[in-house]
């Protein structure tokens, strides 16, 4: 994996869901991952924000439909952060 954001997100997912084998796929949703309930979702989002030093708004969080959206949003936010 050469994509640093994908690598970073993968390790966040592994930490949050306690699964060292977990591999991210863009079409992945909460139904595909053991323990991904609403509370774990908040924990996931907060962990992503912390790991990348970014902030999502509730509107942005609501729009996330799958892992692909989260990867895209994280990249977007990082770019904004770098541009600032």
């Amino acid at each position, binding site marked *: 994996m050469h994509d640093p954001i994908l690598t970073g997100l993968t390790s966040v997912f592994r*930490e*949050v869901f*306690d699964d*060292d084998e977990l591999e991210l796929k863009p079409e992945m949703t909460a139904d595909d991952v053991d323990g991904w309930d*609403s*509370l774990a979702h*908040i*924990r996931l989002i*907060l*962990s992503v924000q*912390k790991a990348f030093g970014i902030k999502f*708004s*509730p509107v942005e*969080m609501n729009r996330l439909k799958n892992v692909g959206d989260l990867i895209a949003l994280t990249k977007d936010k990082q770019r904004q952060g770098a541009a600032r």
Partner: protein
Amino acid sequence: MSEQLYTELQWLPRPPENFSKRCRALRESAGEAGREMRALASFALDENKLVKLANSIQSLRSTPDLLQPLIPFRLGIISNATSHFLVPALTATAARYGIALECIEANYGQVMQEALAPDSMINRARADAVLVAIDYRGLALGGLLGDAAAAEAVVAAAIDELRALRDGLRNNSGASCIFQTLARPVEATFGSLDLALPGTSRNVIDLFNRSLAMSLTGKQDLLLDVGGLAETVGLSAWHDSNLWNIGKIPFANCFLPAYADLACRLIAALRGKSRRCLVLDLDNTLWGGVIGDDGLEGIVIGQGDPQGEAHLEIQRTALALRERGIVLAVSSKNNDEIARLPFQKHPEMLLRENHLAVFQANWNDKATNIRAIAAELSLGLESLVFLDDNPAERRLVRDMLPDVAVPELPDDPALYVRTLLAAGYFEAITYSPEDQKRADFYQDNARRAALQRTTGDLEAYLASLDMTITFQPFDEVGRARIAQLINKSNQFNLTTRRYSEAQVAEMEADPNCFTLQVRLVDTFGDNGMISVVICRQDAAVWQIDTWLMSCRVLGRRVEQAVLQELLSHARSRGVIRLIGTYRPTERNRLVEDHYSKLGFTECDRVADGSTVWGLDVVDRTDVSLPMKIVRIDDAVSRPAA
């Protein structure tokens, strides 16, 4: 240093690389796994790691033996917010304090219903305590601006509501309550005027917090100062409106580890697990520099130098802890004579030799020395905190003596005090005059041990102590201390049965209960209350329900004196036989042979390892004991000390 000290629990070591692996291995445990749980909980864990550890603990819960030697505690949680995320954080954090915590959550938003309905989930769960996790949104605290009477009425109504809740829980389940102070919202109505103006949220919440704290003093309910924690870490960081809007989460998740630690300290204190002794390193901890190299003139301590003032602050803090009953000891790699010099000769030193119960300066490794300190003070290693600037010494002690708390320290000595105190090792739920004297007790005890070594002859030594023992039934004056001893004593405790203050009060009035509180004074001072006994009458037999004694007075023939007192009362009440039970725990091996030493005969052995012992009252004649005996009856109140 900033809020990270608290959010990241910086006094704890960082978790190791293999933390997740060890958590998973825990789930496959076949034998007692409590020690590993405690070891894993003793790292600085963030929310994700707390969840992992909690999942492992949860997976072993169906086999309670696997949680040994953690002690069980059932905690109900009722909240006006989402409390689900508290459960794993509290479960994992409790293991840090040696507790196997089981949480029972009330249904969301059903605060009053859960308390008042006898068959609610919380009341049926028979919790040991219920955490009432209500934040400012859960209480109707709005008032008319500028109307002082209305503000007071609103606060009084909120306190009444909590009281009704508490009464409901206590009547229906017997549980104590843990009430939280409120973290006030940061949004001001006017600005600086808010504190002064009745009816603003600042003013009303301030009033509420103080009223709540006052309403709980001397009761069996506990106060969790969440408002204080929020102020310490910063209210603007504490309140995260997005989290509330998304999931009704009442404060920012990053503070969850600190919140859980604060709550678990309280539960640990309730179970007598707070620490009692601070062991101090000398060089570069109590002063700057190395006394053996730099000499008396070379060490840095005292006013006028920032480093010297930082070390002075550490000494000031140690003294303040001693004032409230924490025993101080020294462990240093030094020649004894040289190490004592600053205490004797340096004008800027605040700590003097007479503040220290044990002084261990030698070239042994520190683990050996700390073990010797614990032995000399008759304290368990679990009661000790070790403060040392040297990371290698800290690691050694942590590895060799995992029960000793060893705070991680930053490089700057100016931050030692805040780090030590942030860890909350010495949390207390009550404070009695006896606590105040405790440091002196232990110190006198160490002196007694020294005296014994010099006199050699035990009987002569005991006679030289000039002891007076006082026997008295339970009463209101002694109640708080009796309950404290019942909940704290681990080693000299035959049955380790815990009773709340309310239960102790019931025994005072119960005609079938014979109770004794025992005090001891000797030539060195007042030892305070040192023993508690409860007998329950069953026809012509007394069952000794509880017999505990402070280890400070071991080897003083106090047990024999207590037995003679029991026999004399038993005789006068027509009781013909005493039955005592020894219930083994992890900590009370000391009294395994207690009854056999006192001449009881074993009459039963139970599957859990308990032994039952009997003694016929007529069999015994009194022997002479090396102490004066004073009896105070129910009718006469205790003379002032």
